[in-house]
């Protein structure tokens, strides 16, 4: 319980890299001398511990592949009773769906970050417009 009074934080480290695997990241965390706990997950790792130690470890992980490793804070500790699937009878935990949807976008975001870092010029792309209702009507009619 003494740990609860400390400024403990949890960070979710999501790995979307071609060269780094979640296991590599976990091994890097195991090398750390700080008193932190980690949980390996399908998308990366969760790191829990005192604020300074966690921030240090997260920075080390980020430096492995800066533009393809993404980090966000998590409210609950790994294995927290109200969130962990083990105590809730299975099924995805609340918050997983949103994370999964964003994880699908990460390769694209990572490549864009690479381009931004390389200083590639910004080209304004015109977003495809929604289909006009009259055009849609014409398409339907033409198929009939």
């Amino acid at each position, binding site marked *: 319980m003494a740990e609860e009074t400390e400024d403990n934080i949890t960070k979710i480290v999501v790995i979307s890299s071609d060269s780094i695997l979640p296991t590599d990241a976990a091994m890097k965390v195991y090398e750390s001398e700080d008193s932190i706990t980690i949980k390996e997950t399908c998308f990366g790792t969760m790191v829990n511990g005192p604020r300074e130690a966690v921030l240090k470890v997260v920075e080390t992980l980020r430096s492995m592949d800066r533009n393809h490793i993404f980090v966000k804070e998590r*409210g609950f500790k790994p294995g927290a009773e109200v969130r962990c699937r083990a105590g809730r009878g299975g099924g995805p935990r609340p918050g997983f769906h949103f994370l999964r949807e964003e994880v699908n976008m990460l390769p694209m975001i990572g490549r864009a970050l690479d381009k931004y870092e390389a200083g590639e010029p910004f080209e304004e792309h015109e977003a495809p417009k929604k289909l006009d209702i009259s055009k849609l009507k014409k398409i339907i009619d033409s198929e009939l």
Partner: protein
Amino acid sequence: MAKVIIYPTNSLILSDMVERFGHEPLAMMEKIKEIINTVGVDSPPLNITPEGPKHGLKYAAVEVPAGVRGRMSLIGPMIDLAEAGIIVGDSSFSFGCMGCARTNELTKFLIREKDIPLLEIQYPHTEEEGQDFVYKIAEFLKSLPSGSDEK
């Protein structure tokens, strides 16, 4: 370092990018952490308590459903603290704390009402849109003052 409110408030991409470009993201996760780490009678600690809808009365009227007021008790104080904002629309997913359409409307309205630098964009679906998304957010974050916490 500016305090930047992000919408969706639990977004991994936005939270990461704000931190990456040297600012502080105001995100739902930190609020939840504060609540569950506060010593109370609930065991296990709850992220929403009956007190929530009462605190939410500052942001939404009493006729508004308790779910909206409960959520606003978490999001409202973040909007009060915000020095800049990023709103990302056109998301095909909204779950959990982002799962209430009326709260989302009220959140976006309150952020827009506040006189702060604001960036409104859409979630990317193609490679080009992804590049636009990242470049716009990066340029916006770089344009924010870095020493605004000394006000």
